[in-house]
């Protein structure tokens, strides 16, 4: 088969799997698991083959026009360069792992068939986004991902948190998608095509007249999808979905779609200095805010969610300094280790029966209950904190190295201001990342107190994929930084000495400070303050335990993200900031005041106008005919002789009139 055929099959197989899963889910439950896992694994093999054949050479382009549109044509187009090929491999690897993991995680869930089908559909949509060479086709995948995310976040729709979170995720991302769509139209109008290759050609020839406007419009959609400030607020709440969904959609793939999109159209963004600076500021605010918030979260998954937002900030930062190679490199390594972190967190939540770090730190020997999760999570956290030689180190240093290049003026693609912003924010972020990674590890695995409950071994399907993902987390970076430039733009991704020393130094400082604080606080507080909320059905499958853990967090601690735990090192480190950071710097409250309340007030005004004003006129118009009708109805006496008398009178009048007319009087 040709490379093109293989590439078409890659998104198509999970799509067919999803269709079959939805159709057969009720009638043939035995087929559901194979239908969920096998198409994804086949697509993994095909994506790997495509990547192998493409090999970073000339991009594979294929297009077919379905029907003439009369104006800008929409084509089913493939555009597979090194970025697309490798991102597709990442997506299929993570999706395959998540599908296998889900068979164990949701083994008793009655809605598993629809869940698995939606995950397959999501995978297919993401692959479509990755491979598509036409922006309209890309948009189809983009929106299908959005709706899948909505359904999957709301998987436990019995709980109000999940319902609210799914709606919020949908609405906030749509808020970005509307300007995104307008931006696409503006771009296609100016370039005369939706094809990425032609658009890039038009950009190179200077055919785009308003690059700043278009870039900013597109940036809104990217901020929504990739959870960048100020549209990031949906992602922490989206953790109300099942953990595998968080791993696949809200950590490794969908949120990376925005970054990938900019990477594809980077020359367009480069054409506008303003857009690059906005991108850099967005990345910097996102990085700093999310890292502080991550340090204060109590829910283990929310820590990871804020960490995801921050790491995406690194990627947009890399794009702001015009190096898509570094951005996609970080996307790949982050996808691997963040998926691993989430899947391991799912195992821990199942074993501990709670998602609260405050409760975990009061359990002894939790790490002995889940040795696989313990070791793999340690690897992933080291990768997250960018400690050499783990993969996160190389990708993060690539980003910082590029920023340093821009600062020192080695490139003309990006403004130096963007370089400074990204470099400084990146270094602060490195410090904070190490701090919250250390805090997470200490609170989850170094707790002491009553023994953690023993639920026996975790299912093999859940622990096996952790080790599969631990391999790239450990080793991807070290191998890839030499190979990847051939696949990407050819920019060097080798860590530079200055930024490596600086970055690793601040990371170590962050880790050590957190450790010292933890020693200090734990010695004083942990033993004396009892605290805990543990799920009621520890024997259920992991999904059930997690749903209950999320539902009980708010009644137990009064807030979904916050726990009154004095032994938390984050509390001491952040000081008075802690309370605000736990609430995500009250951004939700600000949005409520700025947007939700005015909209509600407007809605009640409209209701008043409709009920009291418009309806009054309608009723007034009806009153006159009603009165006339009442008057006429009085003639209906029911007496037959009255009617006949009236008939006679009428006849006489008519006869007299006829006679008068006939005689000409």
């Amino acid at each position, binding site marked *: 088969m040709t490379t093109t055929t293989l590439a078409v099959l890659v998104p198509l197989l999970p799509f067919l799997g999803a269709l079959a899963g939805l159709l057969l889910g009720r009638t043939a439950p035995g087929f559901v698991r194979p239908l969920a896992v096998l198409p994804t694994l086949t697509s993994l093999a095909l994506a790997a083959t495509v990547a192998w054949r493409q090999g970073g050479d000339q991009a594979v382009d294929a297009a077919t026009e379905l029907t003439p549109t009369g104006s800008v044509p929409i084509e089913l187009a493939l555009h597979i360069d090194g970025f697309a090929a490798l991102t597709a491999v990442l997506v299929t690897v993570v999706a395959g792992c998540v599908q296998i993991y889900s068979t164990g995680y949701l083994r008793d869930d009655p809605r598993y068939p629809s869940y698995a089908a939606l995950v397959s559909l999501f995978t297919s949509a993401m692959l479509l986004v990755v491979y598509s060479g036409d922006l309209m086709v890309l948009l189809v995948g983009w929106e299908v991902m959005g709706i899948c995310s909505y359904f999957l976040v709301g998987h436990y729709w019995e709980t109000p948190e999940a319902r609210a979170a799914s709606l919020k995720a949908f609405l906030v991302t749509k808020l970005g998608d509307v300007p995104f769509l307008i931006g696409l139209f503006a771009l296609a109008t100016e370039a005369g095509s939706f094809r990425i290759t032609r658009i890039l050609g038009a950009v190179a020839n200077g055919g785009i007249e308003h690059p700043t406007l278009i870039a900013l419009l597109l940036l809104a959609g990217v901020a929504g999808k990739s959870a960048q400030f100020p549209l990031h607020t949906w992602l922490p709440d989206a953790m109300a979905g099942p953990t595998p969904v968080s791993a696949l959609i809200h950590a490794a793939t969908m949120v990376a779609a925005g970054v990938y999109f900019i990477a594809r159209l980077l020359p367009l963004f480069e054409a506008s200095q303003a857009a690059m600076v906005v991108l850099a500021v967005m990345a910097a605010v996102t990085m700093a805010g999310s890292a502080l918030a991550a340090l204060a979260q109590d829910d283990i998954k929310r820590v990871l969610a804020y960490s995801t937002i921050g790491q995406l900030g690194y990627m947009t930062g890399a794009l702001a300094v015009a190096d898509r190679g570094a951005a996609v490199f970080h996307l790949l390594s982050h996808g691997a280790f963040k998926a691993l972190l989430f899947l391991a967190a799912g195992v821990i939540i199942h074993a501990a029966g709670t998602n609260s770090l405050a409760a975990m730190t009061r359990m002894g020997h939790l790490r002995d209950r889940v040795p696989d999760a313990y070791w793999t999570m340690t690897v992933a956290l080291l990768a997250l904190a960018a400690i050499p030689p783990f993969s996160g180190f190389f990708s993060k240093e690539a980003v910082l190295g590029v920023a340093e290049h821009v600062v020192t003026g080695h490139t003309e693609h990006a403004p130096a201001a963007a370089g400074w912003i990204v470099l400084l924010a990146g270094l602060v972020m490195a410090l904070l990342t190490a701090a919250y990674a250390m805090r997470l590890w200490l609170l989850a695995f170094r707790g002491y107190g009553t023994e953690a409950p023993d639920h026996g071994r975790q299912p093999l399907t859940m622990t096996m994929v952790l080790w599969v993902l631990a391999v790239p987390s450990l080793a991807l970076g070290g191998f890839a930084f030499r190979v990847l430039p051939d696949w990407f733009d050819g920019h060097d991704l080798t860590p530079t000495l200055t930024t490596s020393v600086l970055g690793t130094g601040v990371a170590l400082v962050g880790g050590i400070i957190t450790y010292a604080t933890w020693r200090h606080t734990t010695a004083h507080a942990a033993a004396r303050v009892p605290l805990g909320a543990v799920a009621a059905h520890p024997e259920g499958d992991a999904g059930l335990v997690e749903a209950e853990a999320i539902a009980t967090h708010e009644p137990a601690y009064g807030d979904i993200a916050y726990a009154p735990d004095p032994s938390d090192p984050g509390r001491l480190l952040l000081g008075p900031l802690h309370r605000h950071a736990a609430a995500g710097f009250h951004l939700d409250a600000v949005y409520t005041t700025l947007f939700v309340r005015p909209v509600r007030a407007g809605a009640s005004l409209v209701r008043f106008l409709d009920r009291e004003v418009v309806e009054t006129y309608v009723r007034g118009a009806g009153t006159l005919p009603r009165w006339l009708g009442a008057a006429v*109805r*009085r003639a*209906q*006496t*029911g*007496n*037959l*002789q009255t009617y*006949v008398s009236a008939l006679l009178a009428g006849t006489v009048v008519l006869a007299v009139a006829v006679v008068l007319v006939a005689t000409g009087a």
Partner: protein
Amino acid sequence: MHLAYPAVLSALLFCTGLYGVLARRNAILVLMSVELMLNAVNLNLVAFDVWLSRTAEETLHSGQALTLFTIAIAAAEIGIGLAIVLAVYRNRGTSDIDKLRDTAEGHEPDGPDSDATGREAPAPRAAGEKAEATA
């Protein structure tokens, strides 16, 4: 015979019938009055047919033929009418058309019905008694 005689006779008959329809209360008498009016029309038809055919060279006597039709239809009509009156009388205990006001505006299904039965016949239902008490 001059045309005026049958014409005046039929006019008198018609007016008698009209007076009966408008003034009598008993439904049977009203029906009889309707018959009078019909027959006044029949008389007119025959008389004018004769008067018109006198000058015509050739005639089908369609007026007289139409009279036969009218008589036949009147017979059927009076049969049905009397049957209805009989049925109403059996149901309500009266054939007085002043009391049969079911089509009046604001009529409640049981109101005049029970009213009528309450006055002239023993009340068949408890509702009838209540209606009488309120009336």
